[in-house]
C-alpha cells in the first residue's frame, strides 16, 4: 500500500470519490484506473451502505444502485485487489461505522492492508469516538482520516493533531452534493488546522466544477469531489468511464495549476 504522503509530495492533490460497485464492480475497476490516468493524486472509494447519513441524494442513489447490484464489502475488496498492482496512487475507503463494525474491525483493516488501501474516512466516527477504530488502524498501519466542519470552531486544532494521512475539511453545512456556491470561510478553517499541525488539509463537499476546484485548491492542500463524479456514473452507467475521465481531467488540471 502506498503512503498517503505521496499524494501531496509535489503538488496540490485532486481526490475523486466514487461509490464502489456502482453500477457494477467491473465498471468500478475501469473507473479507478481512469481516475489515475486523468491525474488523480489519491482516490476515495465508498463502500456502499444502506443508510448513508452524511450523503446527499446523488450518493444515496449510487449506494442503492451498488447494493441492488449485489455489491458487498468482500466483493468490492476482491475487485480492488485485482487492480491494486496497477494503482500507483494511494487509495482510501469512505464508509460508515456499521459495515466496518459488523465485518470485524481487525479483519477489515487487515484486509485493507492486503489489498492496498491506505486509509479510512468514517463520517459517523467523530473525535470523541475515534478510539473505536484506532487500535485496529494502528495495528495494520491504516490511516484514520478525520473530518472538521464549519461548526467545529475550537475543535479544529485538536482534531487536526490526531488526524492521519490528511484532514478532511467539510466545506459547508449539510450533506454531500453539488453546491452552486461555497459560502463558509474554508480558508480560515484550513489556517486554524495548519496552526496546530502540518497535516495536508483537503476540502470536500459540494465542489463540482473546475472553477470551484481551483478556488478551493488555492486555500488548501487538496480538493475532494464526489457527487459531481457519481452523477456522471449515474447518468452513463457502464459507459461512464470516458465521461468520468474527461471530467476528472478538467478538475485535476484546475487543482494542479491553482
Amino acid at each position, binding site marked *: 500500500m502506498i503512503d498517503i504522503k505521496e499524494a501531496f509530495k509535489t503538488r496540490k492533490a485532486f481526490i475523486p470519490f466514487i461509490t464502489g460497485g456502482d453500477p457494477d464492480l467491473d465498471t468500478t475497476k475501469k473507473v479507478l484506473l481512469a481516475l489515475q490516468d486523468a491525474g488523480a493524486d489519491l482516490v476515495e472509494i465508498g463502500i456502499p451502505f444502506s443508510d448513508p447519513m452524511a450523503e446527499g441524494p446523488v450518493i444515496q442513489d449510487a449506494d442503492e444502485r451498488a447494493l441492488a447490484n449485489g455489491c458487498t464489502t468482500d466483493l468490492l475488496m476482491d475487485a480492488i485487489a485485482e487492480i491494486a498492482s496497477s494503482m500507483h496512487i494511494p487509495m482510501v475507503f469512505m464508509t460508515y461505522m456499521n459495515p466496518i463494525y459488523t465485518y470485524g474491525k481487525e479483519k477489515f483493516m487487515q484486509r485493507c492492508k492486503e489489498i492496498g488501501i491506505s486509509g479510512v474516512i468514517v463520517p*459517523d*466516527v*467523530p473525535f470523541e469516538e475515534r478510539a473505536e477504530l484506532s487500535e485496529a488502524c494502528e495495528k495494520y498501519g491504516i490511516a484514520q482520516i478525520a473530518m472538521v466542519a464549519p461548526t467545529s470552531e475550537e475543535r479544529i486544532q485538536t482534531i487536526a493533531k490526531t488526524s492521519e494521512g490528511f484532514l478532511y475539511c467539510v466545506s459547508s453545512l449539510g450533506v454531500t452534493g453539488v453546491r452552486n456556491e461555497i459560502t463558509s470561510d474554508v480558508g480560515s478553517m484550513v489556517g486554524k488546522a495548519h496552526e496546530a499541525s502540518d497535516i495536508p488539509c483537503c476540502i470536500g463537499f459540494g465542489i463540482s466544477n473546475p472553477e470551484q476546484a481551483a478556488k478551493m485548491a488555492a486555500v488548501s492542500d487538496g480538493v475532494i469531489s464526489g457527487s459531481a463524479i457519481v452523477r456522471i456514473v449515474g447518468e452513463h452507467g457502464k459507459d461512464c468511464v470516458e465521461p468520468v475521465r474527461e471530467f476528472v481531467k478538467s478538475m485535476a488540471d484546475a487543482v494542479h495549476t491553482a
Partner: protein
Amino acid sequence: MFEGKGIRMGTKGRFGPYGGQYIPETLMNAVNELEAAYEHYKNDPEFVKELNDLYRDYAGRPSLLTYAKKMTEDLGGAKIYLKREDLNHTGAHKINNCLGQCLLAKKMGKKRIIAETGAGQHGVATATIAALLGMECEIFMGEIDTERQALNVYRMELLGAKVNAVKTGTRTLKDAVNAALREWTARIEDTHYCIGSVMGPHPFPIIVRDFQKIIGEEIKEQVLKAEGRLPDAVLACVGGGSNAMGTFYDFIPDTEVRLIGCEAAGEGADTPRTAATVATGKPGIFHGMKSLFCQDEYGQIAPVYSISAGLDYPGIGPEHAELFRTGRAEYVSITDDEAVDAFEYLSRTEGIIPAIESSHAIAYAMKLAPQMSKDQIMVVTVSGRGDKDVAAIARYRGKDIHD
C-alpha cells in the same frame, strides 16, 4: 413530577458497551451544547416548575392507573393495572418528552424544531408543543407511514407543522430519522432536533428517558397507594423504547419487579417480515449509537416490518440493549396477529381502544397473566390511544374503511 436533581449522566452516554456519539463532526458542537444546556436547566428551579406546570395543566398529568377488572377476571391470573398514557393530551406518552425537549430548546434560543415520526404520534406531539411555544416546526415521516397514518399527517399540518414525506430507502421510520439528521446538519444554528425515542447520540437517550421516567414514578406511587406494594411485573411495548424506558427506569433498582419489553415481531420473529430487534438483531453502530440492530452479515440495515408504524424500527435504544445484556429486563416478540387480537380484546373488555403499538404489550399481558397467581400484580403501560389505528385495523380485518 419532573425532578432533575440526582439524575445520573454517564460518561459520554455509555450504558455498558452501548450508547456513544457516532455522528458527523458537523453535529458535535450541537450535541455538546445540548448536553451543557440540559445539565444546567434540569437543575434550574424555574425550568423545572414550568415543565411540571405544563405536565399538569396542559398534558393532564399525572395519568391514571386503571384497574382492569374485567380483563383480570377473564384471564384468571395476575391483577392487571393499566397505566393510561393514552389519556394524555395528544393521546400518547410522546408529549412528556416533547414538552421537555421543546421547552429546553426554547431556553437555548432555538426558533425551529424538527422531528422524525413513525406512527405520527411523536410528530403530532412535537407539532402541538411547537404551536404552544410559538416555534416553527418541520416533521419528517416515511412516505409509507404518511399513507398508513394519513389522519396524523393532516393533524400535524393543522397544528401548523410542515410534513415532509421521506421517499428514500424503505420509506419508513429509519429513513425519517436519516432525513431529520441530514436536515439538522444543514441547519443547526436555530434548529433543535427533537428525537422522539431513547435513541440517537448522547445525550438524547438520557434526555428522552429523563422526560419519560415520570411514567414509572407515577406507576410506583399509584400502585403503592392502591395495593400497598410494588407490582411483580411491568410491561411496555418497545420500538426505539421510550415508553418502556420511562416505565422501567424507576423500577430498575427494585430487582423483584420483572421488566418486560414487548417488541413487534411483524409476521413472526423467525420470518424476514419482522421488527423484533432484540430477538433477531446484533450489536452494531447506527443512528449515532452503539446498540442492537436488525442487519445483514455486512452491516447493511435490514428493512423491517410491523403493522405498527411506531414499532417499525430496526434498532432499540442503547439503555435497553444494556438492560437486555445484563438480564435486568426481558424482551418478548408479539406478532401482528396477536397485537390486533389484543387491540380488539381491550376495546371490548375494558372499553379502552389502545394504540396498535401498545397492543403489543396488552398481547403479552394476555399470555402472561394466566401464568401468574391471583395475588400477583402486573402493570401494563398503554402508551397511546388507538383512534389513529381504527381504519388500518378495519382494513387488516378486510373491511374497507378509509380515514
